[in-house]
């Protein structure tokens, strides 16, 4: 009879479960120890089909390119041409997404304004209202109109260059926000009309309208208050992009903003971020189709956000039909968020540069997602603004490089026919052929 423990008998190697991974197990242990779900910032970290799964075909026998450094390739775009007297004129089709003062420090908001203005684009307020430094440094500022209405007042509304009605965001469509007490400084508390140090919940739905029929009247009110001068955007988290876009347009939106699940948030439950909503790639074509079906593609502009990182992403989103994109997480990284130069501090927080996402705790070593005066002092808004400007310019040059290679003298002339997909999933979501084939999966039904 053999001895099971004999060294001569081959042993089964320890195998880690693909289901119960070390990260999953660690989360189970953490939940068991604390009794509370994990809250974090950022967007979905899981791998989902994304713009990386698309490729441009470039010029060939049937297409001829434009000279890379000589021939013009337009990058400007007007947002809000449907009803607004004063549409927003952008030099580049890359905007800065809404991020709140409170989640971000005042200097960080100032830097976003500086960088965006220097690059000829807009930045956006967030939950918590408009700060003077942000308005002062932003040549084009979009004022978010949020369910919480923290800091909301008609004077700031009239200072805005556009109004963004926030119905949802990609990281948490259907969810509200939470700014934990440790980030509630005197200034943040005053702007939000709440006591210092308490957790501040942001409502998940608007307090005075429900559904698209109400929204149409709410938009009427906002236009009446602002004299029909500025564009009104409607921002939704990516869930039902065809219908949401249709309803936003019906309600009177000048611009529709769709935010995919890779889009970030200052703080919400990890389970929400990773399990609710659609990838950015999956929502662009349905939204564009909705606009086309209404005969309003390009008249109502589409802005896409959620995981936009470089000029290729910009070009791909626009080739799929977007008029512009918005960046949030990437802008924070450009400012210095998660920079390895703070690695020692990240280690003290139990994380590492690149993975730090506890933005809600207010201990950001980079001094960006904090209200701590000592940490804030680490961040120079002038230098931050310069870095953001540089980054935006690089993204624009990259997008132009691709557009010229496809023979386009305007970024908005890029089209789905310039693309192919590397995976079946991406081909189906983007509605473009799988590379090397003429097969577009999923075209037997409507794109909704």
């Amino acid at each position, binding site marked *: 009879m053999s001895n099971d423990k004999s060294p001569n008998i081959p042993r089964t190697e320890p195998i880690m479960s693909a289901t119960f991974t070390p990260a999953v197990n660690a989360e189970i242990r953490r939940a068991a120890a*604390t*009794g*509370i779900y994990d809250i974090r910032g950022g967007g979905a970290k899981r791998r989902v089909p994304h713009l990386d799964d698309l490729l441009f075909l470039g010029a060939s026998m049937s297409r001829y390119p434009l000279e890379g450094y000589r021939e013009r390739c337009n990058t400007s775009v007007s947002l809000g041409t449907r009803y607004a007297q004063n549409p927003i004129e952008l030099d580049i089709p890359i905007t800065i997404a809404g991020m709140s003062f409170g989640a971000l420090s005042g200097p960080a908001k100032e830097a976003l304004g500086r960088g965006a203005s220097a690059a000829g684009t807009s930045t956006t307020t967030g939950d918590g209202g408009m700060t003077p430094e942000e308005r002062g440094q932003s040549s084009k500022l979009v004022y978010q109109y949020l369910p*919480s*209405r923290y800091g*909301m*007042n*008609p004077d700031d*509304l009239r200072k805005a260059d556009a109004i963004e009605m926030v119905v949802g965001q990609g990281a948490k469509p259907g969810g509200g926000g*939470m700014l*934990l*007490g440790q980030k509630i400084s005197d200034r943040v508390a005053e702007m*939000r*009309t*709440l*006591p210092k*140090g*308490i*957790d501040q*919940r942001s*409502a998940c739905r608007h*307090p*005075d*309208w429900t559904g698209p029929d*109400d929204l149409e*009247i*709410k938009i*009427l*009110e906002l236009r*009446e*208050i*602002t*004299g*029909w001068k500025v564009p009104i955007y409607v921002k939704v988290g990516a869930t039902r992009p065809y219908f949401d876009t249709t309803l936003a347009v019906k309600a009177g939106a000048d611009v529709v903003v769709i935010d995919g699940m890779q889009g970030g948030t200052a703080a919400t439950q990890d389970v929400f971020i990773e399990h609710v909503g659609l990838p950015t790639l999956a929502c662009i074509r349905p939204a564009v189709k909705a606009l086309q079906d209404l005969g309003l593609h390009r008249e109502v502009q589409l802005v896409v956000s959620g995981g936009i990182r470089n000029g290729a992403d910009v070009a791909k989103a626009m080739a799929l039909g977007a008029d512009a994109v918005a960046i949030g997480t990437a802008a924070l990284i450009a400012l210095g968020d998660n920079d390895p130069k703070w690695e020692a501090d990240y280690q003290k927080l139990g994380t590492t540069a690149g993975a730090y996402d506890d933005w809600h705790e207010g201990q950001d070593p980079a001094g960006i997602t904090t209200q701590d005066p000592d940490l804030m002092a680490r961040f120079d808004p002038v230098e931050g603004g310069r870095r953001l400007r540089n980054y935006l310019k690089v993204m624009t040059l990259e997008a132009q490089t691709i557009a010229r290679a496809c023979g386009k003298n305007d970024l908005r002339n890029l089209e789905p026919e310039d693309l192919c997909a590397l995976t079946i999933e991406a081909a189906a979501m983007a509605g473009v052929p799988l590379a090397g084939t003429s097969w577009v999966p999923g075209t037997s039904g409507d794109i909704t």
Partner: protein
Amino acid sequence: MMQTFDLEAEGLRALNTALQAQTRETNQTPWQVLNPKGAHAVAVGLDAPIDVQVKGSTGYYCGGMNKQATIRVAGSVGPGAAENMMSGRIIVEGDASQYAGATGHGGMLVIKGNAASRCGISMKGIDIVVHGNIGHMSAFMAQSGTLVVCGDAGDALGDSLYEARLFVRGSVQSLGADCVEKDMRPEHIELLRGLLEAGECDAKPEEFKRYGSARKLYNFDIDNAGDY
């Protein structure tokens, strides 16, 4: 001299343009609006010490984001009346639909009839005096200011409220999460007396009960999760 504006004949844009053009120094202070006929967004975004009398009922958002102005509606108002009001006074002679005074930062809203659900939702400093009853979920997440109800309150009054003060003379169908009854101290009687007087109401402050936040949910605690 009274300025008269026929909304049906001249249109909403012209009305709001005219009213919004009034400045702090204006001597055209009395206005009357004829034929509102349920129009939405009547007299919104005003920012001058003018008196506007609306001769009839309105739709959504009457007096929205008001500053300084006094708006008196000789009728009822639709949803969201006086939403996000900053200052001034809005008096509704009839009833108010949902979300009356939502997110208001200041000023006073007086409703002489009843108010529907979510009256004072997310209020941020406004004072609201309702002569009649209010519907369910009123003062939900109310942050600051005072809601006075001379009649009864519906379900879930003051759910998840913060520092807003609630006074109800009649019955309360139920209290929302973290909302509790509190003692009426002399300073509350005095506060209420002033609000009732300003709200054109002759009710006696001693007849009211006070409600406010238990402050148990101000910082998340897993042991309170069942209260949400």
